[in-house]
């Protein structure tokens, strides 16, 4: 209820900080205009890659934030109790396959997984869902099919990607199993703002804005890192190891990490690496949607210390072993 008394004033300096924010951004625009990066080819290249990664990813981040806020505000906490009643061996496969129903790329699945874990879903299931959704969703399966249509390796790529993606996601979930959400989730300093009183729509708007801003800042840092690497590290370095069996797989995983491509389009890029075998291309397609530069930043901000390192190790090992087998069987 609202009365006519004075509102509780925010801490001193709050409005000054809002003004500083606006002023700082105006200054940044003026400095950019003065520097004119168009005159410096490398800088211009950096800004185009940086902008393109963000323009493509931000709509997915905001859609992920919509789903995340919806889960927080409209889904009762007990909704995930049924998942916990499933036999333990079934929980991770069910969580992984649930990714099929969430057609967004990797940026959108991180806030959703965080919210699911905070809401009571077992962290193992939430993490499995987060990692499998960018690979198992129907758009990604369709784009992989289109990219490899007409090739002998079509089904090896489509089915191999889905199978190995699910295996890697479940392996990470298995490693995480037994940990509580407070152990795995990093506390968010801004979260107290989100518990906004008032009608549900207001709370929804608060959570949506909070999740978008939280993920957005780390996406910006990740996109900047990816753009820097893309601008200044020649890709010919990767091509030189195409004929070396295990190194080719590792190189393609490294390239996937650097490029930070959206899982809905990366198959077209992978398909172009014709000098690499089926295993190396598959390594690119399985590893990239789970581990890349921008995701590293997002994971580090969302999950506790050591989580990202563990994901790299587990996903890397499963991807390497799986693609080596596929290379032997199909390559």
């Amino acid at each position, binding site marked *: *209820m609202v009365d006519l008394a004075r509102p509780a004033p925010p801490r001193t300096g*709050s409005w000054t900080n809002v003004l500083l924010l606006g002023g700082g951004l105006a200054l940044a625009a003026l400095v950019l205009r003065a520097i004119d990066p168009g005159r410096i*080819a490398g800088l211009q290249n950096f800004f185009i890659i940086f902008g393109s990664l963000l323009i493509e990813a931000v709509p997915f981040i905001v859609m992920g934030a919509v789903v995340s806020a919806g889960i927080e505000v409209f889904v009762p906490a007990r909704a995930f109790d049924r998942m916990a009643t499933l036999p333990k061996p079934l929980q991770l496969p069910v969580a992984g396959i649930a990714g099929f129903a969430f057609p967004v790329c990797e940026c959108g699945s991180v806030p959703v997984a965080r919210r699911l874990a905070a809401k009571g879903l077992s962290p193992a299931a939430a993490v499995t869902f987060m990692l499998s959704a960018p690979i198992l969703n129907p758009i990604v399966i369709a784009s992989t099919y289109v990219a490899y249509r007409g090739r002998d390796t079509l089904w090896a790529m489509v089915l191999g990607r889905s199978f190995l993606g699910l295996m890697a996601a479940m392996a990470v979930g298995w490693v995480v199993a037994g940990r509580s959400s407070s152990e795995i989730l990093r506390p968010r300093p801004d979260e107290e703002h989100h518990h906004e009183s008032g009608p549900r729509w207001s709370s929804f708007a608060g959570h949506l*804005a909070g999740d978008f801003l939280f993920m957005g800042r780390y996406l910006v840092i990740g996109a900047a890192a990816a753009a820097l690497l893309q601008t200044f590290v020649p*890709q010919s370095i990767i*091509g030189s190891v195409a004929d070396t069996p295990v190194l080719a797989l590792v190189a393609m995983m490294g390239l996937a990490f650097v490029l930070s491509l959206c899982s*809905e389009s990366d198959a077209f890029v992978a398909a*172009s690496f014709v000098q690499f075998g089926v295993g190396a291309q598959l390594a690119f397609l399985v590893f990239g949607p789970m581990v890349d530069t921008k995701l590293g930043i997002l994971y580090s901000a969302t999950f506790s210390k050591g989580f990202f390192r563990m994901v790299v190790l587990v996903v890397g090992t499963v991807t390497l072993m799986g693609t080596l087998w596929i290379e032997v069987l199909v390559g």
Partner: protein
Amino acid sequence: MHRAGLSPVRVASALALASWAGLFWFLIGSGRTSLYLSSRTDWVVPVGAIVLTAALAGRLLSLRTARPEALTRREALAIGLTILPVVTVLALPPASLGSFAADRRSSLASAGFSGDAGDISSGEVTLVDVASALRSGEGMQQLTKRAGAEVGFVGFVTRDPGMPADEFLLTRFLVSCCAADALSIQVRVVGAPPGRFEADQWVRAEGLLYPLGGEVIVDATLVEGVPRPDRPYLNS
């Protein structure tokens, strides 16, 4: 009990949402989406504009609260970081990937693009056909049958060190999703007016096509400067 007042945190978050929503509407209005995304994925821009605008409306309607949250300097910096890319896109002149990127992405260019070689055997030869030919032996065989065909390609000028003055590489990027996955397609143009075209200048080269070994050559009958196309990247 307190009367509802404006929350600095909510105002700042509204500013961030407004900036991003504004950027997406600007991209739609200015046609600059094609500098960043392929036509396959440019639907994300209107979707982003609509969802962000709806999110902004929700935030604007809930700016007031009985307990306005304080905005710390650190939070202001974090929100500023989120808005900074919007400033960079709006402040910079419109540009597409150029010869600098072509040099850096050369291994992708040599890898080529997985196109349908069957498309090459008939109709007008396009740069996408050239990419398919560069990728596969079958494609190159198809293109070789078209040797001597008249072609007209639009792209920008790049040069390799030591190239004769009357030659350059006509380059165009092929994009699947966004500029980050661009692959370059290059044809060597011979018989161009020496010294008339600079690196990164957009040109149209007409002439006769000759696939030779691992590269495709255009023996130019006409090379003229043209404005950058509305869609500077080809789509796979």
